[in-house]
């Protein structure tokens, strides 16, 4: 017996007797005898206080936002998480429930997902959203699978260079068995216009990201119509915080819009769990993957929520399903719904505005340093490229000594930019912190 197993020795004896066996080992006779009860070479168990001490030790071996100033983004951002978000996530009624297959006793989860879907639609201007994917990268990969099912007999996906390199990698992982050509991102520095030029009569989908991986904002109005005129679909990978101020994917004419939901109150969490946001047009509702919650009534006429349009899903359609996805990121969808509800119309705009203003302040100050040059030929939101006088790895090592985590080193992904660092600034970077970064860079 352990503190998680409430069966006593007396219970066990009584139960074995009821079952009609003598010993617990007798329940495992179907396991081949030669392979039964192998030893497990694991460390001896620890008590709760011992374990918490070891966990604390491991935790403190990591740099984290309470001890370091973070100017690193590249797909994971140190945005503010209101305390109220975690208070809701800690409710056992939410986090110890399963997927809401029994709607009569799952109205809490179902209503939360419905409100998440609604908030995401309001944020993006898109018509429908599903209940989530694993993260931004897999949501983007599923957009390609959906497009191949909507646009029949076309086997080419065009993806712009400005899409996060890890997302482009996941796209290729997902599609490697499907006889699909993925093009458009081969040339460093190539633009959305270059990618659009690759969309031809074999293309099912164009994928762009806005703001792109280098933080630049693009005017995408009219892009959807241009892509659709060639018989393809447009997918826009957006940033949910940027939408507090800037153009929505709906305004771009997107058929599909995906995002990494991490900035919406999830924290950094060393890369996960995050949230894959997936939206599209109403007319494609039967083509999308994953769960969707709708509204109906019970037999007494009360309004109620339920998983709907389930004939698309793997447990019903099996090999003809739109995807194999089952478990998704339900609790993270809840977290983002709480976050968006707390922020509301004004808060979403304010976070975007503080982020924009502080990022531009940081860019101006860094650009004024001798030897440093900020690439600002296009508008940017939260991240910007700084060309540095020395290799980024060296600069970041010096920053670490001052408890600053510097920007993302672009030398592997975009070598044509030279010693280039991608710097991210959010509302969590105070003006004083930005000034300190500038001072440390100046003193190098």
């Amino acid at each position: 017996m352990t503190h998680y197993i409430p069966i006593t020795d007396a219970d066990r004896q009584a139960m074995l007797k009821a079952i009609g066996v003598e010993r617990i080992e007798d329940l495992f006779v179907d396991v081949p005898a030669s392979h039964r009860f192998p030893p497990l070479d694991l460390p001896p168990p620890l008590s709760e206080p011992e374990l918490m001490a070891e966990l604390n030790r491991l935790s403190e071996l990591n740099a984290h936002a309470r001890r370091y100033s973070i100017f690193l983004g590249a797909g994971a951002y140190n945005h503010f998480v209101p305390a109220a978000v975690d208070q809701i996530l800690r409710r056992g009624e939410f986090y110890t429930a399963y997927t809401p297959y029994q709607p009569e006793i799952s109205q809490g989860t179902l209503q939360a997902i419905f409100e998440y879907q609604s908030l995401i639609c309001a944020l993006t201007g898109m018509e429908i959203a599903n209940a989530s994917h694993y993260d931004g990268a897999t949501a983007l990969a599923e957009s390609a699978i959906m497009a191949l099912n909507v646009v029949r007999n076309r086997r080419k996906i065009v993806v712009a260079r400005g899409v996060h390199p890890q997302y482009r990698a996941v796209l290729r992982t997902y599609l490697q068995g499907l006889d699909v050509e993925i093009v458009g991102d081969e040339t460093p520095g190539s633009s959305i216009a270059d990618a659009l030029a690759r969309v031809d009569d074999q293309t099912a989908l164009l994928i762009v990201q806005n703001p792109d991986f280098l933080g630049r904002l693009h005017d995408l109005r009219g892009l959807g119509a241009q892509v659709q005129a060639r018989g393809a679909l447009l997918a826009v990978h957006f940033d949910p915080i940027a939408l507090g101020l800037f153009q929505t994917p709906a305004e771009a004419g997107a058929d599909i819009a995906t995002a990494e939901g991490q900035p919406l109150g999830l924290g950094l969490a060393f890369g996960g769990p995050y949230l894959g946001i997936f939206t599209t047009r109403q007319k494609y509702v039967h083509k999308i993957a994953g769960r969707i919650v709708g509204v109906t009534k019970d037999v007494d006429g009360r309004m109620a929520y339920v998983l709907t349009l389930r004939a698309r899903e793997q447990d019903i359609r099996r090999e003809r399903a739109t995807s194999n996805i089952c478990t998704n990121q339900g609790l993270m969808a809840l977290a983002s719904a709480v976050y968006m509800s707390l922020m509301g119309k004004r808060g979403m705009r304010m976070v975007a505005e503080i982020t924009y203003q502080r990022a531009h302040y940081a860019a101006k100050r860094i650009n004024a340093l001798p030897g440093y040059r900020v690439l600002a030929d296009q508008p940017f939101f939260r991240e910007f490229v700084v060309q540095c006088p020395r290799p980024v790895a060296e600069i970041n090592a010096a920053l670490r000594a001052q408890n600053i985590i510097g920007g993302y080193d672009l030398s592997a992904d975009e070598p044509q930019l030279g010693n280039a660092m991608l710097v991210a600034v959010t509302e969590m970077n105070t003006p004083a912190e930005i000034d300190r970064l500038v001072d440390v860079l100046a003193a190098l």
Partner: protein
Amino acid sequence: MNNEEPPIFTYSQPGKIGVNLPAAGVETTPLPAELLRQDDLAGFPELTEPEVIRHFTRISQRNYSIDTGFYPLGSCTMKYNPKLHEEAARLPGFAAAHPLQDEALSQGALQLMYELQSYLGEISGFDAVSLQPAAGAQGELTGILVFRAYHHDRGDTQRTEVLVPDSAHGTNPATAAMVGLKVIELKSDARGNVDLDDLKAKLSPRTAGMMLTNPNTLGLFEEHIVEICRLVHEAGGLMYGDGANFNAILGIAKPGELGFDFMHYNLHKTFTTPHGGGGPGSGAVGCTAELAPYLPGPRVRRRDDGTYEFFTPEKSIGRMKSFHGNFGMLVRAWTYIRSMGAAGLRAVSETAVLNANYVRVMLKDIYPQAIDRICMHEVVLRGQIAGAPKDVRTLDIAKRLIDYGFHPPTIYFPLIVPEALMIEPTETESKQTLDHFIATMRQIAGEAVETPEVLHTAPTKAPVRRLDEVRAARQPILRYDAEAINRLQTAS
């Protein structure tokens, strides 16, 4: 507590806000006017913090959960989620660390991942583990992509078929299809095992591999598992183990020693990470040394100097998601294994199997067992009660259980069992709870004969009663729309 809670949008009043944000505090840069959104976030609600908290707390109370009751949902392993794990995952070095910060600044996280890789490998008998997949279905996708890459690497491009038993989870055939492979269904025999003659007939030079859940979805240990693995290997195929039911065999058997080549672990089932109302999960995968070069990266290895680093295997199929997997779930699984130790994990599986068999013998005289054998961690019964009217179905039994305060078992799965009731008690339930559940199931069987209408009209004590699911699908309302909801409420 059963009161309806209106949609959050109905509380909205202009000007409210639920957060306290700093001023920008820097000189202002003009916004690029042509790039601004045009609609001012129309439809976004405006509330204060107390209103948001009350709303979400109220809707949480309309949920059933492990923390509030017995949840014997077969194949889902709804066991207790230890509270220590929630504290562990929220430590700042785990919750507030950036995934791309330098490895030198992430040694605690990397050590934890490295150790978890080792523990999972040891428990399952595999040489290599990747923690990257985010859920069981993504672990399956990883495995089948690895199988494909392995065969192609050997110049063997003709293997386009995946064998899947008719009792399998829907994710198995859906996964094979996502990789562009053809699904070949295998029959089950009278004892609930894979039909060996059918397997032999369907193995061929086109066989890429076989996907098998063991114990299977009938809750039974595959009696011919070693021979099945041998036959598949002789045909040049690979064995995929769906780890959904791994809670039955911790310290009882190692899939790698039985002959499997690859498996996924559902850390959110076997290793107690919470289900979260539908995720996040973690579908870490393990495999033989032969398949290790194809695993997704990044994985973690230990350098000679005792520090840790990420690496990507040489022939990797690529990344499955961004960054390093659902890391918060890895912290919880690591903590669980370190709490339990080897003897504790074996006690987990022994007790899970004991509890399931106890429920089995106490109910099978009334609810016939699908296959009359000793079961593993779950038992599949049939909701066919002698003497009850024909229109009393498993669905009615499930809904009546709700009135008595229990979450229903999984129903109508596996598909090969008519009126299936799949009961998985798990090891974290007491005998008192099991006895109460057994007595309730027997009482419901009596009601099915005496007063079947109470089953047809159940539940009556839940927040809502049975739903019009056809209306939800035919006239879909998939986002908040006050007019559509008003029309719904006034419609007959």
